[in-house]
């Protein structure tokens, strides 16, 4: 019993490793059921598409969070481009530049979308809250050029944007407290509809903002991305990776139950 209680942690790592690799090699499909918070984002993008509107996506994440947030970015962009929604990208995170460029390049090729007309990327700017407030007051003065050096006042997609209020929807993809900065300095001040695509670590922190109506939707972690892929009818990395995710969760649950069982049996033993 004592040996079982002091099991080498590396044995658990091996089980977790097997739980990831085996389902990746011999996959089986598990159903993905969209939750209301993800459905809300999908429905809002559909409503924006009805009025030929524009969406602002903030790519506030770096390479360390690609596994969770890139599938969200691709699923959201695919949905927007398929429905003809124009997308402006921006980042408050210096590492987000490469992330945004990769996502736009990947999806714009799939849908043959044109830079400057269907989408644009404004690049990275520091300043956090002050920068968001400036964009709300005068978008074009704050961002006179996009990431490629084009004039914001001349580009078709941005020429009539005066304030953040001119965006029909803002979605922040982040793995840090940047979303809270967007809420405090952007959504609360300029009252645009906003959603969050966040890592699973951040998801519990976002629920109070959903409850208060400051966010109208949320995609939390890989599960949220898989739900959006399902809704958008474009199953990809997130949906595929939910199978190993579910298997490893079962492995961990088994170890938790096993550990507790051994602990209580050990206490009973003389």
């Amino acid at each position, binding site marked *: 019993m004592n040996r079982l209680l002091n099991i080498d942690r590396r044995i658990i790592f091996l089980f977790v*490793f097997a739980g990831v690799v085996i389902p990746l090699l011999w996959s089986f499909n598990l159903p993905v059921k969209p939750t209301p918070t993800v459905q809300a984002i999908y429905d809002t993008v559909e409503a924006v598409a009805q009025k030929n509107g524009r969406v602002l996506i903030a790519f506030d994440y770096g390479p360390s969070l690609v*596994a*969770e947030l890139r599938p969200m970015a691709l699923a959201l962009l695919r949905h927007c481009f398929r429905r003809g929604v124009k997308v402006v990208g921006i980042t408050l995170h210096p590492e987000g530049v490469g992330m945004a460029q990769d996502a736009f390049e990947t999806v714009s090729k799939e849908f043959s979308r044109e830079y400057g007309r269907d989408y644009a990327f404004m690049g990275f700017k520091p300043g956090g809250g002050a920068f968001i407030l400036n964009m709300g007051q005068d978008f074009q003065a704050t961002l006179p*050029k996009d990431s490629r050096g084009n004039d914001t006042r001349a580009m078709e997609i941005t020429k009539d944007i005066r304030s953040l209020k001119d965006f029909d929807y803002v979605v922040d993809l982040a793995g840090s407290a940047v979303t809270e900065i967007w809420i405090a300095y952007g959504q609360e001040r300029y009252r645009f509809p906003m959603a969050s695509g966040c890592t699973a670590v951040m998801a519990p922190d976002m629920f109070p903002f959903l409850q208060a109506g400051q966010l109208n939707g949320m995609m939390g972690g890989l599960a949220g991305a898989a739900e959006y892929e399902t809704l958008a009818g474009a199953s990809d*990395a997130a949906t595929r*990776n939910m*199978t190993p995710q579910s298997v490893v969760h079962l492995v961990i649950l088994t170890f938790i139950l096993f550990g507790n069982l051994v602990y209580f049996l050990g206490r009973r033993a003389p």
Partner: protein
Amino acid sequence: MRRDTILFVGFVALFAAVNAYLLSVGKVQGDWAGFGVIVAAGLTLAMYSFLYRDNPTFKLAEHLYVGVVAAYQLAQYWYNNLLSDVYNPLFRPEPGKGAAWGVLIPTALGLMMLTRFVPKISPVSRISFAFFVGVGAGLSIPRTISSFLLQQIEPTFKPIWTASAGFTMASLDTFLILLGVVSVLVYFSFSIEHRGAVGGVSRVGIWFLMISFGASFGYTIMARLSLLIGRMTFLLRDWLHVQIQ
């Protein structure tokens, strides 16, 4: 040789042998893209080697990561901020426009912060810090109170029961939020002794906190496993070219 040294040399030799095989059969191209895949695979394995024990390859990968990120961020700050917002407006203004001298004020404030590195003139940096703290407080205090306090209080005081709708599932949510807020606030009220009714409510607060910590921990496990799955997908598909589902 110690067992760990043998393991270390063995893994490095195995990694080299696998790459040699992949290059020889053409699964990894002998160009810069292929080199990038090999480096990424090596660094991924080096980071995960920490699960066995702290070792030199992990340290190397860790320090490389810090260095690369610092350099990448510096480049992004230069091209997206210093070059476009400071250098170009001052020294390469657009045709028909003069130099934007106004840029000199924030630039000077920024440069004054760097005087911290020279002890003799470091007090100059206080002007910049005073400006920074003043503006920061002015911007953040009203926004924080509005967004994180007032807007959060509102849903806590929604009616649990209404004459038109009665008691619904949404009412249960509202009741639980109210109960959670009140009981956790009581738990953190240390000026009252937690006995009797106060102690009971405080105990309910502990339960709410425990459930909240459990939910956060569960989500954290999910997040970390997603990252592991991402790296495993890269190793199997992009490096080893194994067919994954």
